[in-house]
C-alpha cells in the first residue's frame, strides 16, 4: 500500500495545491480568508469573554490566538477528512486511485495552512510584547502530533460517512464539545483543584496540545514532551486502526453514491 501511495505522490501534491490555492481563488481576498476567519473568531471571543469571565488574564488576545488558530487547524483536518469521500464521490465512481490519498491531502493542506498561520501567531506575540524564542522549533512536532490525531479520527469518520451520511453532523457536534473541553478560550485555572470537570479536561488530548503551544509561544519554555509524546503514540495507534478500517470499507465506496 505504501508503494502505491508513493506512485500516486503527484496526486497528493496536486490535491494539496488545489486545496490551498483553489479554495478561495474565486474570492476577492483569496487565500487570505483562511487566516481572516480564525482572526474574526478571536475578535468575537476577545470582545465577549472578558465580560463573562473575570480575570481573563493580561494577554487574553494572545492566549486566544495561540488557542484558536491551532484549534482551527485540527478542526479543518477532521472536517475535511470526514467529508472528503463524499465530496469526491464523482471521481471515486469513475477513476481508480488509492482512496487514502483524500484524507492525506486534507492532512497536508491543513498542516501547510497552519504553518503559514503561525506567522500570524508570531506577529501577535510581537505586537503584545511577548516576543519569540528558540522554542518555536517545537511547533512542527506539536503540529504533526495534532494533525495526526485529526487525520486518524477523520479517516475513520470519512469511511463511515460514505455509508452513513449523518456522521459528518455528529462529528461537527463532537468537535464543538472537544473545543469547549479544552483550554482554548479559557484557562484551566478557572476550575478549582480536584474538580471533576477539571480532571475530565485533562483527559482531552487537545488540552495537552494546547498547553504545549502556549508553552512555546507564550511561556517560552520547553513543552511537556512526555504529554505530547503520549498524545503522539495514541494518535499513531489510532491512525493504524483508522487505515485498517478505511481499507476494509473503501471497497464499497463507489457503490454508495
Amino acid at each position: 500500500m505504501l508503494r502505491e501511495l508513493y506512485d500516486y505522490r503527484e496526486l497528493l501534491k496536486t490535491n494539496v495545491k488545489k486545496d490551498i490555492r483553489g479554495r478561495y481563488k474565486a474570492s476577492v481576498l483569496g487565500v487570505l480568508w483562511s487566516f481572516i476567519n480564525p482572526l474574526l473568531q478571536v475578535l468575537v471571543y476577545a470582545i465577549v469573554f472578558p465580560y463573562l469571565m473575570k480575570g481573563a488574564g493580561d494577554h487574553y488576545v494572545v492566549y486566544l490566538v495561540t488557542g484558536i488558530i491551532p484549534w482551527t487547524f485540527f478542526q479543518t483536518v477532521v472536517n475535511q477528512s470526514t467529508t472528503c469521500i463524499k465530496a469526491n464521490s464523482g471521481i471515486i465512481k469513475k477513476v481508480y486511485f488509492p482512496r487514502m490519498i483524500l484524507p492525506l491531502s486534507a492532512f497536508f493542506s491543513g498542516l501547510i495552512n497552519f504553518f503559514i498561520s503561525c506567522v500570524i501567531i508570531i506577529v501577535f506575540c510581537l505586537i503584545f510584547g511577548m516576543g519569540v524564542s528558540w522554542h518555536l522549533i517545537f511547533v512542527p512536532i506539536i503540529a504533526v502530533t495534532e494533525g495526526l490525531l485529526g487525520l486518524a479520527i477523520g479517516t475513520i469518520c470519512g469511511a463511515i460517512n460514505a455509508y452513513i451520511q449523518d456522521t459528518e453532523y455528529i462529528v461537527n457536534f463532537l468537535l464543538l464539545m472537544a473545543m469547549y473541553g479544552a483550554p482554548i478560550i479559557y484557562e484551566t485555572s478557572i476550575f478549582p483543584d480536584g474538580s471533576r470537570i477539571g480532571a475530565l479536561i485533562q483527559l482531552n488530548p487537545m488540552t495537552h496540545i494546547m498547553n504545549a503551544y502556549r508553552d512555546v509561544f507564550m511561556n517560552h519554555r520547553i513543552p511537556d514532551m512526555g504529554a505530547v509524546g503520549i498524545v503522539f503514540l495514541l494518535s499513531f495507534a489510532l491512525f493504524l486502526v483508522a487505515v485498517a478500517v478505511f481499507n476494509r470499507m473503501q471497497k464499497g465506496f463507489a457503490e454508495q453514491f
Partner: protein
Amino acid sequence: MNSDNAIEVRNLTKEFKVSYDGAKTLKEFLVRRHTKAEKHVVLKDISLDIKKGETVGLIGVNGSGKSTLLKLMTRIIYPTKGTVETNGRLTSLLELGAGFHPDFTGRENIYFNASIFGMTKKQIDARVDDIIAFSELGDAIDEPIRTYSSGMYMRLAFSVAINVDADILLIDEILAVGDQHFQDKCFDKLLELKNSGKTIVIVSHALDQVRRLCTRAVWIYKGTLRLDGDPAYVIEAYKKQSAIDHKEEKKAAVESGTAAYKGVVFIDSPSDFSREKCGQKVTVNGWRIADSDDFEFSVEVNGKPVSEISEVDRPDVASVYEEEYAGFVEDKRLGFSAAFVPEKAGEYVIRAQIRTAGRIIAEKQITVIAS
C-alpha cells in the same frame, strides 16, 4: 497469473442491492436492518482472459453488465465472488476531466488530471507538450479553464486521457468528443496505441468503431458471457439477438400498455409547395418505418387513396435507424414510390400515413400546386 495475460477474470459474480439506493442517513440505515434488501445479479460467473496487446470490444445492450465488468477491471468496484487480476499499469478512461478545477489554467489542470491516473511529475513533464499539441488549444492553455467552451474542455480532457502512459487502457464510450475532425484524430490515436502493443478494452455502442478497431469482441448478454471471438462475427450475432429482443420487448410493452407503437414517414420528393404541370405524372418518393410488423400504409391525394404503391430498397435509411428500430428495418424495403396525375389546376394535398389497429402512428403531409 499467466504472464501472457494482461487481465484475468475468474468466476466473477457481481451483485448489487437494488431495493433501496443505499441507506444515506442513520434513520434509513436503522430501518433497513429490519427489511431484506433485494439482490440483483449483474454479472454471473464470468471467466475471461485478455492477452497482452489485444484490443477487445465489450458489447451488449444497456444494463447487460458490460460497464460493470469494466469498472471491476479498474478496481472502482469489487466482485461479490471470484477474482480480477491485472498485469501492468492500468488506466481507465471512464471519466474525462476528473480532478479539473475551473479556476486553474489548462496547463495546471493537465497535472491535476494526469496525476489521478497515477503519473508522476516527471512523467507528466515529458508528456505535457504532446498533450497541449494534441488538444489544439494553443495559447488558451494558459487561461483558466472556466473560460473554455465545452468543446475546448473536452478536447483538453481527452488529450490528457489518451496521452497517459499505460500498458492497459480501459475505455468507456468516449469516442464521441468534439467535432468530426477531433473524433477522427482520437480514433487514429487509438489505432496508434493499438499498433504499439498496448492492451485496450473498450465498451462501446458504436459497433462500427468496434469492428474497425478491435481484434476481438466479447458480447455480454444479461450478465453472462454469450459470445467471444472475431468482431465481425460477434457483432452480427449480437445484432440479430438485439433485433429479436427488441421486437419482443416492444410487443410486450404495447400489450401491457406501457408503450405505444411509433413510426416515421418522410416524403423526399416532390418538395412541399412545389409547382407541377397539369396532366403530367407526379411521382411521390419517400420512406417509412414502424416498430410493428403489421401496419397499414397509405398515400392519399386530396383524401383519395393512391392504389399503386411500390416498395423500394433504402439501405441508407436502414443504417440510420438500425439501433432505434432494431428488428424492424432488416431485410425490409423501407422506401415507397406512388404516382398520380393532377387533372386540374389547383392545390393537391398529399398525405402519407402509417396506422396500426386503426390508430395513426405517423403521418407526413405536403402540398403541391398544379398549374
